[in-house]
């Protein structure tokens, strides 16, 4: 009789867990799906702190359309499949706005899944607000009506960096290093095409992809760059891959300019030290030494004091404020209407006017190329060093054509 008993036991367990709970609650729920553990956990945690600070600010000012805003964190461990599992959990908890930024692989999975969810569950649509996944395909080949991006994509940022390269006649050879996934491949392709187009005289002496989050010691890669005699290094690395790369470059005394997207925050500056001064450059929509109103500076100081973390993601506040403006306009959590309002919206940020381009939902915003330097007014991660603007690129100049052919809901 032994087998029979075991069967009956776990059938009852199944029955017990079939009790019904459903969680519908009012208020604006925002689902933050990013890595909150593992090698990129600290990067994800920093983004969450920015969103929660923005939500508190908006709630203090009366909330979005009169409703309180809540940001719920979901840990996807930077894995696309886990992102879909967490998306399902978020939707079940009543989340109607999903924000994500770390890892274009997760972003590609989310944008596809959200489009399918909206098609299959009319009336329960979900909006995907992407604050940092910069794979160009998201607003070109794979664009869709429910995805909005609040960060310049790879080609826009690469255009800025290669413009700077145009008038550096003493730089003859370049080495490209990126992580082996969609973003890294897009970064490498953009770098290759734009360098050959704008600097035909320059020679690309190396283009390497390394597995994301798994290389613990970048010294062999740095030594390869040195033996290839590269005059400049272009890298798309971010989070722990950026920190460790810079740590290895510092240890090996690699004295060449590093053009990066993410060299300026989340642990990288502390690993750079003195040898990186004047060499490491980044292209971002914000750094602490761009002058802005005193009120904005006070906000930055307050954020850093509350979270003991550098104010880095200005675009998160742009995202939240534009969402706030849209929901105030619509008056309720009606996602299709909110999406329509966001399309083509212009918004005045403390660092200039930005517009959400209607035909591919890509935010057009001013970008700044800045260099890691000494003796600056505000330092980064209290290292004594900070970033100083080289070139300010107005929003219109960053705009690139799009191949997006979006299917708009009827």
């Amino acid at each position, binding site marked *: 009789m032994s*087998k029979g008993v075991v069967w009956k036991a776990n059938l009852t367990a199944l029955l017990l*867990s079939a009790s*019904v709970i459903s969680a519908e609650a009012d208020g604006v729920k925002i689902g933050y799906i990013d890595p909150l553990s593992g090698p990129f956990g600290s990067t994800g945690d920093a983004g969450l702190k920015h969103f929660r600070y923005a939500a508190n600010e908006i709630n203090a000012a009366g909330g979005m359309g009169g409703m309180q805003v809540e940001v719920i964190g979901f840990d996807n461990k930077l894995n*696309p499949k886990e992102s879909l599992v967490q998306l399902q*959990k978020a939707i079940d908890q009543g989340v109607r706005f999903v924000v994500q930024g770390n*890892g274009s692989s997760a972003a590609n999975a989310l944008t596809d899944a959200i489009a399918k969810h909206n098609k*299959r*569950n009319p009336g329960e649509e979900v909006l995907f607000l992407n604050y940092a996944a910069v794979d160009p395909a998201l607003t070109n080949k794979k664009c869709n009506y429910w995805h909005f991006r609040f960060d310049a994509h790879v080609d826009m940022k690469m255009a800025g960096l290669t413009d700077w390269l145009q008038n550096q006649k003493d730089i003859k050879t370049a080495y490209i290093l990126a992580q082996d996934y969609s973003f890294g491949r897009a970064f490498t392709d953009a770098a290759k095409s734009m360098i050959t187009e704008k600097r035909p005289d320059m020679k690309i002496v190396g283009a390497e992809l390394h597995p994301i989050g798994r290389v613990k010691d970048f010294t062999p890669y740095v030594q390869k760059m040195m033996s290839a005699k590269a005059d400049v290094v272009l890298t798309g690395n971010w989070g722990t891959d950026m920190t460790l790369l810079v740590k290895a470059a510092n240890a090996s005394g690699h004295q060449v300019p590093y053009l990066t997207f993410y060299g300026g925050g989340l642990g990288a500056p502390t690993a750079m030290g003195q040898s990186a001064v004047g060499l490491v450059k980044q292209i971002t929509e914000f750094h602490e030494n761009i002058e802005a109103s005193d009120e904005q500076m006070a906000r930055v100081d307050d954020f850093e004091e509350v979270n003991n973390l550098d104010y880095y993601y200005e675009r998160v506040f742009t995202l939240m404020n534009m969402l706030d403006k849209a929901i105030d306009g619509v008056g309720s959590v009606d996602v299709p209407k909110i999406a329509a309002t966001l399309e083509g919206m212009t918004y005045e940020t403390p660092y200039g006017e930005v517009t959400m381009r209607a035909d591919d939902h890509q935010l057009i915003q001013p970008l700044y190329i800045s260099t890691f330097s000494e003796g600056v007014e505000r330092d980064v991660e209290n290292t004594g060093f900070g970033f100083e603007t080289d070139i300010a690129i107005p929003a219109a100049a960053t705009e690139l054509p799009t191949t997006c052919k979006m299917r708009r809901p009827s």
Partner: protein
Amino acid sequence: MTDYSLDRVPDLAPSARYKFATRVLPLLLLALILLSIPLFEPSRTWLSLFNAIGINMVFALSYNMLLGQAGLLSFGHAVYFGLGGYAAMHGMNAIENASYDGGIWAAFPMFGLPLVGFAGGALAGALIGFPSCRRSDVPFAMISLGIAELVAAAGFMFISVFGGEEGITGDRMNGIELFGLSLGPLGDVYWFIAFWTFVGVALMYAFTRTPLGKMAQAVRDNPERVKFVGYNPNRVRYLVFIAAGGFAGLAGGMSAVNYEIFTPESLSVIPSGLVLLMAFIGGARYFAGPILGAVVLTYMQSNLSDYSEAWLLYLGLLFIGMILFAPGGLAGLLLSGTAALKHSLSVKGLLRVGAFASSALLAAAGIIVLVELAVRYSNGFGEAFEPFGLHLAPDQMMSWVVGLVLAGVGIGALKVLSKQGGMGS
């Protein structure tokens, strides 16, 4: 010795009633459960939980075909789950493309993708199983670990097959519909998962009733003797390995349709570890053990992780507790519990089982309090741990004392009770 003429030999097969009670009835009950769940109108959260439980049930049972039936400890069973899943994903995309430009795939229903998964898993089992089945026990475990790491690493290289970091995605709402299910909303997917879970469980149970299934158990008990009754143990292991790979691929196919995405991580050692925990905690000695393990672990993985960040610690402690004190797993504990109750239904028997259960609960409560306090203390947020109305802040000494006392009393009682007479095989 009286003289026997050998044709009047008593039929030793178990009585029809016994056979029905232990073999057919449980399957009917399972079918009843699967049919009745939608009547409760479960929300999307519960539907996705049940889908995950269904997939893990088939996966854990396929793993137990190796561990419980054939005595092979594998650290790489997710390879066959993953390869089967990838086969199903490519099948899904082929169906989608066929709906535009025609081809044989247009005739294949999305509902049948787990069969593609089964084929993928079985083929992988046949290719990888051939060299590794020549060894057993620790060497087999090491080869399975090595192969799992190899295939997972290859997953990031062959982009066209495994899709690199992004993996392969697809849309299940294509091709011809079967039983009127568009497989769009989760409700339809539930029926799809329920159907294949029942088919998987029934087939795997039937497998244990076949000559090959019986010989697999013989190889588990005594591979030496099997050689002398006409069977080559490596050949038996190899065939069981292919079948187990096939059913793991079936679970992979179900997962492909449910999640519509497959990434190389699902091939690696992490999911292989989880399925091992499911089978062992559930009770590898019993056919239905892994089902219990799958229900418990899937619930812990998806729901418990919301209430406590340390759910993996609880899982590890439960696993080590099982190995040290109850190798028979949950099913083993359950059986010896009911057996103890049935045999000595006396008050003493009830008291003993009651005492065991309560001291185990006490110890568990103590450990949970200590762990939750530690988690809150280390993550720096101040909010206290409020179970059932108690207010235990991590910075007050009192809360830690409460935890220590509970755990101490519980474990002490368990030690005393177990010294009096073995409980749990």
